[in-house]
């Protein structure tokens, strides 16, 4: 792994092979100044990104696990060196981490458990965290769990109908998502369980590429 990483850095430095890069960035659809919401924490893993090109060929970013702090614009873009210059027709990715990563011991980088996105007592990554207040209701969601029946990672796919394929912008309609939640039933979710799966299922419907 280390070897591959060092080789890639090496190639990048000399720009011999990694000619093309793809940037994928995430944005929240609204400014909270005008909304009845305050968001304290919104972080999550994006992983297993797969790009499909116009001719049907694919690029899989299989070793990429990106911890995104959606509130910090300096971390909301992911840059992938594909080495491919074709137009992209669709993109898919996991919101969360795959199960293999959850059962294989310790990892470094964005997966380093010191980053606070790991449960020690019930091993596994927290796929995403969302904490704040909406319409005077406090909520804390730490959504994780990798094993059936409480697996919470979600694959999200989008068609990409644009020729400018240098940057893909994915929008998260956070206010609409928060509006859909019954806070009286579930304002705190912090362990792998059915409610977490339901919340994750619902959340991914609010990810889209805006035309």
């Amino acid at each position, binding site marked *: 792994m*280390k*070897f591959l990483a*060092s*080789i890639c850095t*090496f190639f990048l430095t*000399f720009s011999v092979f990694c000619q093309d890069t793809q940037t994928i960035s995430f944005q929240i659809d609204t400014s909270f100044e005008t909304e009845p919401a305050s968001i304290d924490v919104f972080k999550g893993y994006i992983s297993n990104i797969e790009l499909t090109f116009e001719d049907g060929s694919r690029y899989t970013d299989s070793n990429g696990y990106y911890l995104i702090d959606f509130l910090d614009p300096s971390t909301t873009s992911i840059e992938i060196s594909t080495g491919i210059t074709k137009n992209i027709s669709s993109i898919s990715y996991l919101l969360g981490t795959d199960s293999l990563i*959850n*059962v*294989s*011991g*310790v*990892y*470094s980088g964005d997966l*380093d*458990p*010191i980053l606070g996105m*790991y449960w*020690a*007592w*019930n*091993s*596994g990554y927290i796929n995403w965290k969302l904490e704040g207040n909406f319409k005077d209701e406090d909520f804390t969601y730490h959504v994780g769990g990798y094993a059936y029946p*409480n697996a919470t990672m979600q694959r999200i796919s989008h068609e990409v109908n644009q020729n400018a394929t240098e940057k893909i912008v994915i929008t998260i309609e956070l206010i609409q998502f928060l509006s859909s939640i019954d806070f009286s039933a579930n304002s705190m979710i912090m*362990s*792998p*369980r*059915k409610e977490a799966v339901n919340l994750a299922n619902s959340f991914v419907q609010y990810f889209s590429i805006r035309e």
Partner: protein
Amino acid sequence: MNKFLFLSLIGLSILLYSAQTEIIGLGSIRAPKGWPEPVYNRPVTDAGFVLGKKLFYDPNLSRDGSVSCASCHLSFTGFTHVDHAVSHGIDDRIGTRNSPVLINLAWNSSFHWDGGVNHLEMQMINPIEHPNEMDNTMKNVVAYLNNSPEYRKMFFKAFGDSIVNMPNTLRAFGQFTASLISSNSIYDQVKRKELEFSSQEKHGYRLFRKNCAECHREPLFNSNEFASNGLPIDTNYNDVGRFLITNIDSDSMQFRIPTLRNIEFSRPYMHDGRFGTLREVLDHYTQIDVTKSHLSKPLKKPIILSDNDKKDLISFLKTLTDKEFLYNPRFRP
């Protein structure tokens, strides 16, 4: 010229890489003859083992420098907390479970009495951060280690990086704890035909195979599974075991099926340490109410043992004592 530079840079990076593998090394946990392959498949080196051992015995990993891992996991008793039903950690705060033995962990596919931890490397976060155990944070631990020139040297030797981080700290712990292998008990020597059981031990072994071996499987004398063994819940703790992890009703009151190796010295017994002697344990198993709904399947047929049977069975269980393991100076600070 440019081409030459390019090639020599490739050469250099390959050289650097191979130097690094030399530091990391390619040793791993090997299965004693007749054992299954270990679950733990990480490289283990002398430098990693020595570092992990130093961490294991270092009380500065706790919030106030008062307790180390070894406080509750003493080498002489199979790395458990002898005579403590449930263990006490920092400020003498007590937990809710009996500290488990650390024996042949490389063959475990999960850890803790409830199996909540799925990899040996990830286990150590729990006692370090638990308020009733060491009550520290991994961030503090990493900062403490980074402040120690001695540790930094040891991390460099073990991982080729003197900047301490959490992954390498956990890896070192993993290497030490995975190396705690007990495979030289009288039982093992009998299996290798170096010794013979006494007639009492032989009878005890037969009784063991008939009544206990379905769950406590040879040669590790455990299984990586969970069972409800009919113990009534202790209302001081209301510990429902594996259910806490899975949220599956049928997992309520299920606990790990632990190894019986070195059981002579690892008292008290059961997940909450409620029994002080092996005799009490056997008395429990012969008195189980087999009509209980949550009881695990192998226990639904009654276990019948006479007084003499129990003595013989205990004499067999004592053949699982491995003095070489318990008194191994390599495992001590």
